[in-house]
């Protein structure tokens, strides 16, 4: 297939450092202020939606952010934290600069996604849900499916899909992503380019 060959040519675009790891509580207040409700029942229905907004914006939900959501919707922090730990989409730890999703759908599994997870753990020391100590990489194993089954095994690095990938290719992609971001922060703002050299 033509696409399988092209898949590795594109470099992932390293995201510039945005400082999003720190949750700005004013932004959280701003986000939840758009969530309106008319009664107690509706407020409860909106807890998940509010948490999704925060999670989508920052990549994770801190206890302080959870408290703001709870206050806005008239519920307890406890209840909010119960939801955060039950639903797999939420993170309660900050992400790395590059967030990797490893698809663990059946199709990817039978084509070797377990090996990718194993190698991430061997090379970078990160298992599902972990972030490297330098904050460069974080990984999440998607127990469902990323829905790009004809390119399995597939990984999603930041916003771009790559597949099919082998361990070496994944390693290479990540090394380049890290190098690209470091090069970017070194010459921050000089040319406005987000693409790695």
């Amino acid at each position, binding site marked *: *297939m*033509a*696409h399988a060959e*092209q898949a590795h040519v594109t470099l992932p675009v390293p995201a510039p450092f945005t400082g999003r790891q720190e949750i700005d509580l004013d932004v959280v207040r701003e986000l939840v202020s*758009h*969530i309106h409700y008319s009664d107690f*029942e509706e407020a*409860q*229905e*909106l*807890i*998940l*939606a509010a*948490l*999704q*907004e925060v999670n*989508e914006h920052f990549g994770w939900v801190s206890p302080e952010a959870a408290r703001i959501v709870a206050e806005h919707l008239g*519920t307890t922090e406890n*209840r909010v934290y*119960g*939801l955060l730990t*039950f*639903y*797999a*989409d*939420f993170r309660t730890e900050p992400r790395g600069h590059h967030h990797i999703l490893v698809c*663990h*759908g*059946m*199709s990817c*599994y*039978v084509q070797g996604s*377990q090996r990718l*997870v*194993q190698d991430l753990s061997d090379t970078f020391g990160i298992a*599902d849900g972990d972030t490297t100590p330098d904050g460069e990489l974080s990984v999440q194993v998607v*127990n*469902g*499916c*990323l*829905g*790009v*089954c*004809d*390119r*399995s095994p*597939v990984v999603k690095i930041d916003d771009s*899909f790559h597949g099919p990938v082998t361990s070496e290719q994944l390693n290479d992609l990540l090394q380049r992503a890290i190098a690209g971001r470091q090069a970017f922060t070194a010459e921050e703002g000089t040319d406005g380019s987000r693409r790695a050299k």
Partner: protein
Amino acid sequence: MVHVAPSSHLPRLTSKDEFLAFADQATQRWDELWAGDKVVVSVGVGSSSIAKGALDVLARCRQELGNSAVVREVSGNGAFWMEPWIEVKHPGAPPVVYGPLSTNDVPGVLTGARQDLAVGVRGDTAHNGIPPLNEHPFFKGQHQLLLRNSGVIEPDSIEDAIARGAYRGYFKVLFEMSQEEAIAEVTTAQVRGRGGGGFPAGVKWESGRKARATPKFVACNSHEGEPNVYKDRHLHESDPHRILEGILIACIACGAERGYNYIGGEYPLGIRRFRKAVADAERLGLIGKNILGSGKNVAFRVRTGGGAYICGEASAMMYSVMGVRGQPRTKPPRSVEEGLWKRPTVANNTETLANVPDIIVNGGEWYAKLGTENSKGTKLMTNQGPMNRMGVVEVEMGMTLNSLFNDIFGGMREGYTFKGVQTGGVSAGPLTKDHLDIPVDFDSLGDVGGMLGSGGWVIFDESVCVVDFARYLTAFNRYESCSKCVPCRLGNPALVEILDRIRFGRGTLDDLALIKRTSKHVIELSLCGLGQVAPVPLLGMIEHYEEEFRRHIVDHVCPTGTCPISATEPAPALAAD
């Protein structure tokens, strides 16, 4: 993402006639678009094609053409193997679909130089030697009702949808039919629940209508967390108005004051497009108070899930909507007696509700003519694995697995040999080569240990070790167990542990008996559907491929070389997870 703005040019319709006039206008605009003297270019944009660069293709088309042509963002058409694709219609010629292509192919396709990329003509007759798309084996065997608009309309445009017939069933239920008549059509159609259970929808609606407590709700379950099914995602992305119309019809027929759609958080594009559909319908006056002057009221809410597979179970889904942990409860009371906020709630799968508009418009009898004796209509199917063509297809019930796999999906890719197919997501057993002449419907597959379920097929080839695969399926259920009841919470990890023992070469023949005993406990004692079927795939694997399990246990050999048992170095103490 909670708020998606409606299109600002839409009027507010307050009467029957205004709706009919609006529909006529939309149809006229649609016809003019295709009969006009401008080039019309449509790019298929869905989650799967975005992953392959469809947005870049779209941007390139806009850049190449500027204002000289109409560039439309339609959804994918289910054929993942030809993505990204674009459809080019020159004045006086039928639309031709090209794919798969890269951004660099775009100029050539637009000028007509790259005829080699043409897949087919969207229409009935060949053009310039390009055959009609419907003659392509992938589309030829399909019977498209739900997918009729996918890849054709712009999902963000309510006018496109209305021009192609949306909201006609809703209109009929609002003005021309009583609640009883509407439900009678659904009952006559004998449409069964598409989420896996196969419960007749008409019966459920009737008990919903008869329930005395008020207010009542209708909840559409669009949470498909199974690792191989993407039909609901595709429906949301391609034709959100069809789903919305189905839910609204159900609300009117059952006398519910509010409709819900609970969408899994896994597909943001589907959620955005569906929210847009709701916003547009609200602005047009199809949702709200005194709809089109009929005196009927329906409110609507979209709720999104957070990546928990268990929330596909109806009671867990309702808890999730209510903002608590999605853990199922014992039944009875069933949800039509006590559902959301302890009120009667009719819960249906997306695909079931998406069938409803056509049933209301064309009548239950028409629908009942499709399909087999006990399974009426069509079914969406998705596939995974090393096959030539991947995608979402819609076939009439009763097609054999052989023609589904070999004709539509194009058989196995070169270099792969068919070994088996996992049916019913993670909730049923596998089928082998011997079962491929079985018709696809709700009942036939059950006889051999398979299940239609939500219509996802995972085809695995000879290089896949069944022990390893069984472990994957069991581990999936272990991970997704909500941990409420003990048999499921402890039984699934125990099963994984036994399988690991076998994979690492420390299994004994007693382990097979132990698996069966443990599975029996999990199946019989678990509270909800997840636990009750969690060990079924494993049992099916043992039943059909016992020899391979024995090879692991007795000979300490993994025939495919997948399991750690076949590694030359000593196995690590714990299973990699």
